[in-house]
């Protein structure tokens, strides 16, 4: 029998994921930190979307007339929910992940039975949880402003976990290759902020040229916005299943990528 020599680097990268229930212990560490500081942190998920809703919904909304019968604030309600689901999961995966790499939190975990893949999985799980916490808070705000028209909108709460996993995995992948804190800003400037404004959260994309709509299909946030909008208005469509499928597929790809990149970053 002949054996083919595989370079060790590749061999390591190609290893099967080694995930155990200890991923939950990694998640619990982040939960403990959050519970230490939540009073200081929890105000932002309320204030920012509140400002956005007031400024855009009422201020700008007065000048806006939509084709459909809905008010502008009803239009941007689901958009804001989707945008902040993205924002919170990305901030946690990118900034949180980077700082925890940098302050050797993961190195300490790896001296215990916790594996690198447990760390990656626990982190993605936590980013997803942050997304759920934020969306739940903003949901109350949006509800108070009358931007929710259907009981179906309650489905947005469990569905906050999906973009949480997707953006958590994408941003943790970036944190794993980031060389410095300042390079994290690029990630937000180039990838997150444009999606925040241009993925259909604040204006209907069909107002724009066709090629923008094609481009939007490739951005993760667009699918979350569309999915949420169907639920707040109470008119989900079959194509929403395609949005869910899109989100699941991209989540799977980036989770696998995060596993590989975190191994590269943490193995010495």
């Amino acid at each position, binding site marked *: 029998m002949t054996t083919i020599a595989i370079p060790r680097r590749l061999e390591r990268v190609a290893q099967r994921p080694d995930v155990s229930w200890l991923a939950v212990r990694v998640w619990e560490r982040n939960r403990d930190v959050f519970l*230490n500081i939540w009073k200081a942190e929890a105000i932002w998920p309320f204030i920012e979307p509140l400002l956005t809703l007031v400024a855009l919904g009422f201020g700008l909304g007065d000048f806006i007339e939509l084709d459909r019968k809905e008010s502008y604030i009803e239009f941007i309600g689901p958009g804001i929910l989707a945008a902040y689901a993205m924002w919170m999961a990305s901030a946690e995966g990118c900034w949180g992940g980077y700082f925890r790499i940098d302050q050797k939190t993961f190195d300490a975990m790896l001296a215990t039975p916790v594996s690198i893949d447990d760390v990656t999985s626990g982190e993605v799980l936590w980013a997803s949880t942050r997304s759920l916490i934020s969306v739940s808070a903003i949901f109350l705000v949006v509800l108070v402003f009358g931007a929710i028209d259907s009981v179906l909108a309650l489905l947005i709460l469990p569905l906050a976990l999906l973009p949480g996993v997707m953006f958590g995995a994408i941003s943790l992948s970036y944190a794993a290759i980031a060389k410095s804190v300042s390079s994290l800003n690029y990630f937000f400037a180039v990838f997150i902020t444009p999606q925040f404004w241009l993925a259909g959260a604040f204006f209907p994309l069909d107002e724009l040229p066709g090629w923008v709509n094609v481009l939007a299909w490739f951005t993760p946030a667009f699918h979350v916005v569309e999915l949420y909008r169907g639920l707040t208005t109470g008119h989900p469509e079959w194509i929403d299943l395609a949005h869910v499928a899109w989100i699941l597929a991209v989540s799977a790809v980036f989770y696998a990528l995060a596993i590989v990149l975190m191994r590269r970053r943490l193995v010495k």
Partner: protein
Amino acid sequence: MGAMIVARDLVKRYGELTAVDGISFTVEAGECFGFLGPNGAGKTTTIRMITCVSPVTDGSLMVDGMHVQVNPRQIKSVLGVVPQDDNLDPELSVRQNLRAYARYFGLSGRAAEERIDEALELMSLTERQKEKIDALSGGLKRRLTIARGLLNTPRILVLDEPTTGLDPAARHLVWQRLRLLRSQGVTMLLTTHYMEEAAQLCDRVVVIDHGKIIAEGTPQDLVREHAGQDVIEVHATPDERPEVMAQLASLHGVTIEEVEDIVYVYLRGDNGIDPAALEVGAEKLVHRRANLEDVFLRLTGRGLEE
């Protein structure tokens, strides 16, 4: 009982650099085993392979009867690791640090809280358990790191330079606690470049330099073999130096080493020279017992190479 760590021809390469170059050693159950060596000798790299966080390039490495490549999780569950760098969690309090760490071993609830109380007590940290990590001094942080390493009641405690950067009082306290653990039968592996630390704690040591083991034995044996019994440090001015060297050359059975402004004379104790009566015409003579530091410096060189 038996061998807890067995390394055979262990190699670690980073690209072109060979950090560990084919070392073999065995750590027996219940002993304190020391890795001595200058910075960059390969001590920490070896520790990383033993603790399953750095893949072995070549050779074999067994810990508690298991292969590091095959059973990393099981091996890590019986190890207590005290790393060289402070990696305590700055976002959690002292007790929260221990609680989170205990959970990584699957310990939680009452059992975990009891272990945490014991570890805090042992390291005299009970009073500080609510504090933030940033509020702790270097010595307290190190004690907390050791307490953390004891939570899973490890079979082997691995300490990478446990007292580097500590003041003398903090260092002695750490030594005292480590001796206590050793007396309780905990197997210990430690790296250090403090020779006094090795002499205080270790039953056996290996000296590592450039990734290779260059000497092995008990601290006493190494001192006898490589430095003898007594050392005389001769501080001679450049004017005195030729005369001093001529006189020293007439002595038999001694080893003489010139380093910068000092001449070291190593006496084996069986060559009939009375160190107290030695006259060599230098401004200053210091007579002392040979120690592990002499062994270290003789074997690894006194240069400042890194």
